[in-house]
Structures are given as C-alpha cells and as structure tokens.
C-alpha cells in the first residue's frame, strides 16, 4: 500500500502555495489557541498552587477591611489549627506604576513555616529574620529587575503613604513549577511600627490570617469554628480554603476568561472552515481522477482513506508545528507579561487540546469532499473537465 500512501502525500504537495498557506493558517490558529488557553490557565494558576491544609480568614465585609491582630491568639486556641500567620497587601509602586508585582507585609517566621514551597537557603532565611528592614523576593521577580542580595528596594506607598525602602535579604525559589516566584515579602512589624507613629488608627491590623489545619477534610468544620468565634463582633470574619479564596479573585474576571475560551474555539472553527474550503476545492479539481480510481475498481473505503488521509496529514502535521511554535511564542509572551502572571506555562492538557483540535480540523475538512466524491456517479465524474 506504499504506492497508495505516496499518491496521498504527493496529492498533498501538489499545490505548494495552497498547501503552504493552509499550513501557515493552521499553525497560526493552533499557536493562538494554545496561547489563549495558557492565558486562561495562568489566571487559574494561583488557585492551583494552593494547599488543602491552609485556610484564609478575612473580614466578612470585604478584603479591603482589615482584622485586629488580637484575633490571632483566639484563633490559635481552636483545636485542629496547627499554625497561624498573617499578611497585609502593601500595594506599593516600584519606580513606575507599570512595574506591578504583589507585595505583602508578613509575619516572617510563621509565614515561611506555613509556606514550605517558598524555598530559601538557611543563611538567607536567617538574614531575613534578623533584619526588620529586610525583604525577600521570588526568583522570577528578582530576575525581572536584576535584584541582588543586599540591594535596597524602594517602594512608594499607595495604601500606606510614604517612601519605603527594604534591603533584599533573600531570593526564594518555588519548590514546584506552579509556585509563585513573583512575590515580594517583608516584615509585618516594620509596617506596624511605622503605622503606630504615622497612622496609629491603622496599626495592629492585618489583611488576612493564614491558618494551617491538621486535616484537609476538616476545612469546612474549622472554617465555621473560626467564624463562630467572631460572630456579632465588630469585625466578623469569613474563613475559607486557600483555593476558594484564590478562586474568588478569578471569579471577578470569570466573564473575561469565558470570552477568551470562546475566542480560542472560534479561532479553531474559522480555520476549520478555511481548510474545509481548501479540501473541497482540491476534491473538485480532481473529480476526474477520483472517478478514474473508482472506474478502475477502488471502492469508497479507498477514496475515503485517500481524502481523509491527505486532510489529516495536513492538519495534524501543521498542528504539531503549531504546538512546537507555541513554546517560543509563550516564552516571548511570558517575558512581555513579566510578573503579571506568576506562572505562564503551556500545560500538557493544552497540548492535548491542541492536538485534538488539529485532528478535528482535518476530519471536518475531509467529510464533505469525501462524501461528494464517493456519491458522485462515476460517469459524471469522468465527464468533468479537470
């Protein structure tokens, strides 16, 4: 059957320009598809990197309202809570508004304990814990701005007015690929001491408490226990799993994500139509050849193989090229996005979807021409001028 395969492949290469343009179209479509899916994935990456053993307690009214630090001791009393830390969103500007990265004031010792995925060398950790003006940054973030240990990092406060500066004491790396390496973390005490002097009303307040629980399956029960403690108090709490907390952020942009997903499928649908047209054109031009094959005794099975094979070879071949091309494209985008997305990686699932899409493109493009060729009476096909 080698000859048959050769016939198929040479048919494919018959119109070099047309095949080339179709290939290019599919490559672009698949690259677009993969990148769009990766943007969506990147959005959800925060939720994916969460631990089932962590709960987040925040003000029930809104994240923008803080909680008194005094809650910490009462929460620690609850049986099943094995660790507690806290953080404040700082929201400062590094030189220029465009340089966005997340900054948190944290209780360093307990925070690093609760987030073992932030990996810091022992000496750097010790240096950070010792220096109240110290800070640590994720590897990706440090790379982006070319920071080295010992550098002084200035931040202009927005939520907390004033010019702040921190000494970089450590650069952590993520234990896993999905770990966020774009965080900037510094001592909560540093923030609090300053507030005590400049804005005492806002001192002794934390944005969220991070709790570690002994068993993941107790998350609901323990969340309720925490919130019950502060029922009817001035600042009621809302406790949820870290994942639910992160998904809460995604939910705000859910409509955009759905739109991006739809666009990713529209791109595939368009290239499907384009390729179907190409295949239909080819089949029409070759009517007399297909009719001859039928006359000579090649049945529907052979014709289907010939047309479907050509179509799939083109779509899958181009699809694979598209997926390969998507990697440098994603790398380029990731560098452009900088620290906007903590993780911007093409997932295996996206690759699977891309391959599936290429198969579907080839299948869809072949169905109609193959059906036409198979049902066309031989005599009519022979009469057509090719």
């Amino acid at each position, binding site marked *: 059957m080698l000859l048959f395969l050769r016939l198929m492949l040479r048919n494919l290469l018959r119109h070099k320009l047309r095949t080339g343009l179709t290939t290019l179209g599919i490559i672009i479509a698949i690259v677009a598809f993969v990148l769009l899916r990766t943007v969506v994935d990147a959005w959800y990456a925060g939720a994916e990197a969460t631990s089932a053993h962590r709960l987040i307690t925040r003000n029930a009214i809104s994240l923008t309202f803080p909680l008194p630090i005094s809650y910490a001791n009462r929460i620690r009393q609850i049986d099943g809570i094995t660790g507690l830390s806290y953080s404040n969103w700082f929201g400062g500007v590094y030189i220029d508004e465009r340089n966005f990265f997340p900054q948190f004031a944290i209780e360093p010792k307990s925070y690093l304990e609760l987030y073992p995925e932030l990996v810091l060398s022992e000496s750097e950790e010790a240096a950070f814990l010792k220096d109240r003006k110290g800070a640590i940054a994720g590897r990706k973030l440090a790379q982006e701005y070319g920071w080295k240990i010992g550098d002084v990092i200035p931040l202009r406060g927005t939520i907390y007015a004033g010019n702040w500066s921190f000494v970089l004491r450590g650069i952590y790396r993520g234990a896993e690929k999905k770990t966020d390496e774009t965080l900037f973390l510094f001592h909560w005490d540093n923030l609090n001491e300053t507030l005590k002097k400049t804005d005492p009303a806002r001192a002794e307040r934390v944005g969220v408490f991070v709790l570690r629980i002994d068993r993941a399956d107790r998350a609901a029960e323990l969340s309720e226990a925490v919130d019950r403690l502060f029922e009817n108090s001035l600042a009621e709490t809302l406790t949820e799993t870290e994942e639910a907390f992160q998904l809460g952020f995604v939910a705000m942009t859910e409509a955009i994500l759905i739109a991006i997903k739809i666009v990713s499928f529209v791109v595939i649908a368009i290239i499907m139509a384009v390729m179907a047209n190409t295949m239909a054109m080819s089949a029409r031009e070759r009517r007399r050849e297909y009719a001859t*094959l039928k006359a*000579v005794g090649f049945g529907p099975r052979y014709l289907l193989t010939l047309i479907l094979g050509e179509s799939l070879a083109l779509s899958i071949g181009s699809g694979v090229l598209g997926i390969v091309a998507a990697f440098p494209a994603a790398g380029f985008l990731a560098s452009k996005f900088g620290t906007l997305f903590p993780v911007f990686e093409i997932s295996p699932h996206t690759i699977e979807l891309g391959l599936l899409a290429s198969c579907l493109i080839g299948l869809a493009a072949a169905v109609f021409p193959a059906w036409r060729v198979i049902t066309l009476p031989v005599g009519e096909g022979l009469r057509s001028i090719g």
Partner: protein
Amino acid sequence: MSPIVEIENLTKHYWRGDQIVPVLTNINLVIREGDFLALMGPSGSGKSTLLNLIAGLDRPTSGVLRVSGINIAELPESSLTDWRAAHVGFIFQFYNLMPVLTAFENVELPLLLTGLSKRERREHVNLVLQLVGLADRMDHYPSQLSGGQQQRVAIARALVIDPALIVADEPTGDLDRASAEDVLDLMERLNVDLGKTIVMVTHDQRAAGKAHSIRHLDKGILTDDPGAVA
C-alpha cells in the same frame, strides 16, 4: 466464439427534475469474445452511456445486461466495483492518468486491488510497459510525456490486470494523426495477438476502420444490423 456481452431490450433514461430524459431505447446487442467493436454516432446519441453500462459504471433502467454470463445490472455496488477491478480495462479520451504518479506507478495502481506481491506487480508492470513500447519512460510523470505516450501508458494500465474486456471512449479523440495511428495499432495488437475483446467509442472513421464491426447509435437507438465489417 461465445458471447461476452449480451444486451437484451436495454433501456436507460435519466431524470431531470420530474422529466424523463431517454438516452438509450430498446438496445439489443451481442459482443463475442475476441471482437473489436466500434460504436459510432453523433454527439449526444448515447455512445458513452452505453459503453459505461457495458463496463459496469452505470446501471440500466430496464433490460438485461450480461457480461461473461453475469447479470451485472443486479450486482450490488461493492461487488460491481470488485467485478470491474478484475474484468474491465478502461481507456479514456483524456488518458486520466494520476499526474502525481510516474508512468510505472500509474500502471501499478490497479494491481493494488489484487493479491500480487510487490515483485509480481513489478514484473507485470514491466511486461505491459514493454508491450506498449514505453519501458524506457517508466519513471516519467504524465506531464513529461506526449499525448500519445500518455495514452499508451493508459493502455498499459488497462492491460495490466489482464481484463477480459477493454472499453475505450474516444481513445484517439485528443491525439494527432501519428499518435492516433500508434494507439490504434496497439489496440489492434491487443485484439489480434492477445485476444482481448474491445469496445471502442469513436468519431473517427479511420479508427473505426481498425474494428471488426461498427455499430451506429442515433438518438439512443442502434440503427444498423450487426455484421457490418470494415
């Protein structure tokens, strides 16, 4: 010689919308093994239609159509396709070679439907290419061959399965006089030396001259009695 094609009261019409278009009316025809029959007639008289029926490319509306004793009008589609692959060789006016395959590959194509091994196929192809005098051109693509050479490749393709019946629809219709002469000589040899039964549609008197007998079609009716020898 025994009859290879037997046609009795054959009628063929097409439907155009709800209107019947009669193409062949009450055809009676017997073609014997080893015959070389030319079908002539004005354009639109139904020559190609009749030839396609004999070759199993189409089905009669009514009547009997037996080839080699098989009523091919009653064969299911897939059996009819297999039957063609084994028994009929086709020669077309425009050669109908696959442009992306070499002469050798074009001739090998119908053999893919047989159980022959690669080596056996090569032997068969070489043999028929020699027979049509194109052994030295077997690696050429159709676009690298003249019309006459292409038609000879097509004849080799028809011949390679060793069919009982060869049908040719205006095989010289697209050729200059010299090439047409070559092709006709070749067909004559297939008939005389190899004993192939040939049914040929032609407009060309000289082509028809090579045939043993000529039948005329006019408006779907066979107008003359058999036996008119050229």
